[in-house]
């Protein structure tokens, strides 16, 4: 059973952390992953940087640009990760835009992920139907879970459809917005979390976008299985060294 599915069965609210590979320094990738696991994080999304991350806000954009400037490439990331499973046990996902994956070759990319021990992919600009028709078999062949997004605007019908073709969790975008653009959750969002929860989907939901501290984490996970922190963590890294990751994670889960 895929590490993601195992993790999802645990009876706890999951904390997942996103970071951009190659940021702040080109070779921080493994250290960050290890430190995150040590601090008790449940799951990690390794961002494959892209030149034009159109679903991301300024923080992740800037970290991606810096990572590329530092020299990050798809090959290098795989190289850095090749021994990761010798030390790290928690589920690892790669989150990236479709074009770099397409250029690498979707099958080659999936194969390499499988070899390394990556558990899933999040590709925001790979549409559900294209995945379903063209790439589902490849993903499954290499044991990769593909994670789809839903937003407050996604229709109930479409949510059920997405649920039907998901086999891990659903990435629930807290509010329709690019990453990093929320400062807290209001009634609208919590109603939305509850509405989805009440749909009793097959796949658990993990909330992303706008989680930055213990308060928003608690709100986000009241009706869901977990939450993902991205921009807030990148911001932390931009001001503090990788040794302080533990403090950051503890401040969320306190």
């Amino acid at each position, binding site marked *: 059973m895929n590490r993601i599915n195992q993790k999802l069965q645990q009876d706890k609210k999951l904390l997942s952390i996103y970071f951009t590979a190659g940021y702040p320094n080109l070779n921080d990738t493994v250290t960050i992953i290890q430190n995150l696991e040590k601090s008790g994080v449940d799951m990690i999304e390794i961002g494959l940087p*892209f*030149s*034009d*991350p*159109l*679903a*991301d*806000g300024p923080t992740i*954009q800037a970290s991606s*640009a810096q990572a*590329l400037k530092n020299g990050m*490439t*798809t*090959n290098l990331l795989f190289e850095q990760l090749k021994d990761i499973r010798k030390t790290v046990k928690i589920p690892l996902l790669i989150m990236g*835009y*479709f*074009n*770099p*994956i*397409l*250029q*690498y070759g979707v099958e080659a990319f999936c194969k390499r992920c499988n070899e390394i021990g990556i558990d899933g992919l999040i590709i*925001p*600009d*790979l*549409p*559900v139907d*294209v995945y379903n028709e063209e790439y589902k078999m490849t993903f499954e062949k290499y044991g990769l879970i593909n994670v*789809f*997004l*839903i*937003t407050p*605007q*996604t*229709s109930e019908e*479409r949510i059920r459809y997405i649920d039907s073709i998901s086999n891990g969790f659903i990435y629930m*975008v807290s509010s*329709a*917005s*690019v990453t990093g*653009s929320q400062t807290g959750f209001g009634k609208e969002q919590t109603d939305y979390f509850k509405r989805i929860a009440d749909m009793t989907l097959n796949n658990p939901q993990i909330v992303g976008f706008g989680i930055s501290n213990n308060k928003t984490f608690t709100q986000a996970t009241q009706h869901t299985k977990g939450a993902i922190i991205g921009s807030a963590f990148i911001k932390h890294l931009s001001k503090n060294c990788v040794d302080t990751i533990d403090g950051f994670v503890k401040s969320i889960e306190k």
Partner: protein
Amino acid sequence: MKTYNVNEKGYYGEFGGAYIPEMLYPNVEELRQNYLKIMAEPEFQKEFNQLLKDYVGRPSPLYFAKRLSEKYNTKIYLKREDLNHTGAHKINNTIGQILMAKRLGKHRIIAETGAGQHGVATATVCALMGLECIVYMGEIDIARQAPNVARMKMLGAKVIPALSGSRTLKDATNEAIRDWINNPVDTHYIIGSVVGPHPYPDMVARFQSIVSEEIQWQLKKHEGKTKPDYVIACVGGGSNAAGAYYYFLDYDEVKLIAVEAAGLGIDSGESAATSVLGKEGIIHGSKTLLMQTNDGQIIEPYSISAGLDYPGVGPMHAHLYTSGRAEFISITDSEAMKAGLELCQLEGIIPAIESAHALAIFEQKTFKPDDIVVVSLSGRGDKDLETYINHFSL
């Protein structure tokens, strides 16, 4: 039968589609389901055509350029989109899309712009309809197309600089998409070219198709036939070309030439010649040809012309290129500038630097004396005066 038009799934050959984040799905899907239906409504048709006529000033003339023709010993007709209200072909599309947006119940409009022509055209139709308008524009383009920035402000639009990447059209498009993600309910995104996710390329091409529709009957009056031997257009995203080609796509006897910006030269590393330098990939929601590294990172393009300074090309054009239906030719900055000045001094028309790229073809390629060559004069050069004056030290 071969067709160079879009199929029901939103593809031109293997190019096109809608590679968008889920956040955009409801908007794009709403548009996809409704655009053909709305465009077919008699009331829509009437309003669209009335505005094209009384507001935009269509039909734009098909002007026989006598002195230019003499110089190049062929028959050159200029399709005068420069005479449209706001000075380029862009307004054909924004008129259509603003009517679409109103019927979809949107009251906030966003757009990206490169040369500023699409931004001005969008600001214009928003003023006309009393809708809020936000235009994203690369910081570099804000500096090099200052007159258009001033025009947008006059028209009440908010111009927001795109500060990331190459700070040009590509980045402005990213910002516009981000805005749309952030404002999924009341906002319509008026894309300015035949790029973006399906149905945009097709919708924009249809709104621009008025150009070739007119060329047919205008040429009939001038030459007694509806089909030219050549249609030539510059290609940034490809909307003026799409409009000029539209009704000729399926007639192989009409040769199509697409002119791309070679910047400082194809091999200089400072270029925007997508078809030559590009590979298949995904940009702004569409599978098409784009300039990218082996790693799939998008390359920052360069052209003296803000409207051609784009690393991709619309999926229709990617297909016209790979299928060989259109010939693609690249023109450098200085070739374009020279052709622009030549048109000023032979015909008294100051072309946009974008359009000047199309005109530069005559120094590259020889036509027969009785060839009928239609050039899409996509816009006027008022926005480019400073660039011209500096370039030639006038």
